[in-house]
């Protein structure tokens, strides 16, 4: 198994190097687009996770973990907490659980922003998906090497 991973082709390696930043950008685009149009945290998270998995196939375990810098399991934890936070905003402001709340912000450069709890929830989902898919993939790859 280990040999298979190492002897991956030059083409895959070169392509993975190029694709990784592009796919991560695409995943962010999908995440943000999900606010009002098809897209969202789940599909965005899957794209990000598969980008890192592709990197793993092209190179090795350590550099795939290096791309992440954090333990995927903590990503799951943070993501769950963020999603729960989005749900709790409702009750904190006198509404029911998961009630949508929005604020309008004016940020220099970006202009007028219409931000709400759904996007926060989606960010949480994004992190959970990236974390859990990578935990699975890395665990599988590690048992394969062991």
């Amino acid at each position, binding site marked *: 198994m280990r040999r298979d991973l190492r002897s991956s082709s030059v083409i895959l390696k070169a392509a993975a190097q190029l694709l990784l930043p592009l796919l991560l950008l695409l995943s962010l685009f999908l995440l943000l687009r999900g606010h009002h149009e098809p897209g969202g945290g789940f599909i965005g998270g899957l794209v990000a996770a598969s980008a890192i998995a592709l990197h793993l196939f092209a190179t090795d375990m350590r550099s795939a973990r290096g791309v992440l810098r954090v*333990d995927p399991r*903590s990503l799951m*934890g943070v993501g*769950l907490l963020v999603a*729960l936070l989005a*749900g709790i905003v*409702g*009750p904190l402001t006198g509404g029911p*659980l*998961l009630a949508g709340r929005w604020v309008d912000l004016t940020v220099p450069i970006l202009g007028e922003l219409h931000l709400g709890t759904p996007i926060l929830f989606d960010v949480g989902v994004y992190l959970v998906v990236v974390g859990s898919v990578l935990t699975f993939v890395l665990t599988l790859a590690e048992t394969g090497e062991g």
Partner: protein
Amino acid sequence: MSLLVALPFLIPMVAGSVSLLAWPSRRAQRAIAVVGTAGQLIAAVVLLVVVWNDGIQVLAAGAWPAPYGITLATDLLSALMVLMTGITGFAAALYSLPTISSRMERNGYYPLMHMLLAGVAGVFLTTDLFNLYVWFEILLLASFALLAMGQERAQMAGALKYVVLNLFSSAMFLSALGLLYGLAGTLNMADLAVKLPALDDGGRVTLVSMLFMLAFSIKAASFPLFFWLPASYHTAPVAVSALFAGLLTKVGVYSLYRTFTLVFTEDVPWTHGWLQVSAGFTMVVGALGALAQTDIRRTFAFLHVSQIGYMLMGLALFTPIALAAGVFYFAHHIIMKSNLFFLSGVIYRLGGSYRRDELGGLWTARPWLSLVFLVPALSLCGIPPLSGFWGKLLIVRAGVDAGSGWLLAAVLVTSVLTLLAVMRIWADVFWKAAPQDRPVRRAPLPVMLWVVTVGLAAGTLWIGFTVEPLWALAERASAQLLDPSAYIEAVLSPELP
């Protein structure tokens, strides 16, 4: 405050995610486990008090009214079940502290335990069949991982059967959901209860309900699809098998109780007739299986199957007293059975085996522990005045009222067989002299094991000696199940802010 309804699963979710973040520190994870499960228990107690005083509590997530939004609701049955989840979860967390290996702790034991508890509480609180499916899968995924965690031969073999049968049951559940949605256009249980009687469907709903019954029966481990349970429960670490024994099959039984009182009451003689058959066979076959075992945990697992039969019988007879007896049995059984699994772990610590023939001498070496063991064991057999006696008495009375002779015969046969199985454990493990090569260990037991087992035994004694509070609760819960109009109204027209 409507958020209260969601707290029993929000608290373990928060605890689970914080526990994931605290991954490197085992001490932090253990502290979170105790605090998180205690929090769930407290929330459950408050919820039960509120439901008892103020009636059914409803939470419409995001202020989207049912049937369009996700609605959570608790009647007394739900609240009681959530309380039992809290008790079992807290007990399992305490028991885990001195018993779970550091390897399992590093592999994510505590986050998975929180996930399991959140899933179980979610099942008890949801009003929507599809959400029921989602909560089921959450708790199943956690239970798969907990079961397979040790990675020993027996665990892998047990886990495989458990996983395959439960995945099959989930697929059947999902198929049934699809068909029901096609027929009724909704999956909110209160909405279904209103719409299904108006549907001129020529028995198709009853047909779909049988598919639901199949799916839930696998999860409840009732005859003939129970064999995954004795194959897997005894392979897990003790705290895990106690947690499973307390809760996992109960979610299946609870789902049957909920759906076959609220939604599928179109053809009661037919559907509940099948439940009666299943209940009778589950009792007898489980008890017979228990007699054939030498491993005490396997014996308890088979007796567990047998008692699922009693709970099903309460639902199958479908009279007020039968349902109340079933609910009573539910509550008593969770406390008693998880305690027996905890105690079998203690026995293993002392005797170094789970096999009856390799154990012995516990009565002379550990008289106090033996007395603690006697409480749930005699309660399991139904010896007065312990909780099991009242549970059985009430079920027998319900059977007499309903004039169901052969089910009564099954109950009586099962009682004798259960007594026999338990007395064999007592005679071999406690009375028989310890084998020469395996003397009972003298080392003191960790305090937590005493706290958990004595605490749960006290619970069993309390239910037994003051029957009235739990029986009153069960009767009111049964009345709510048989006349679901209050539940339906609460779910379909909640007060929105």
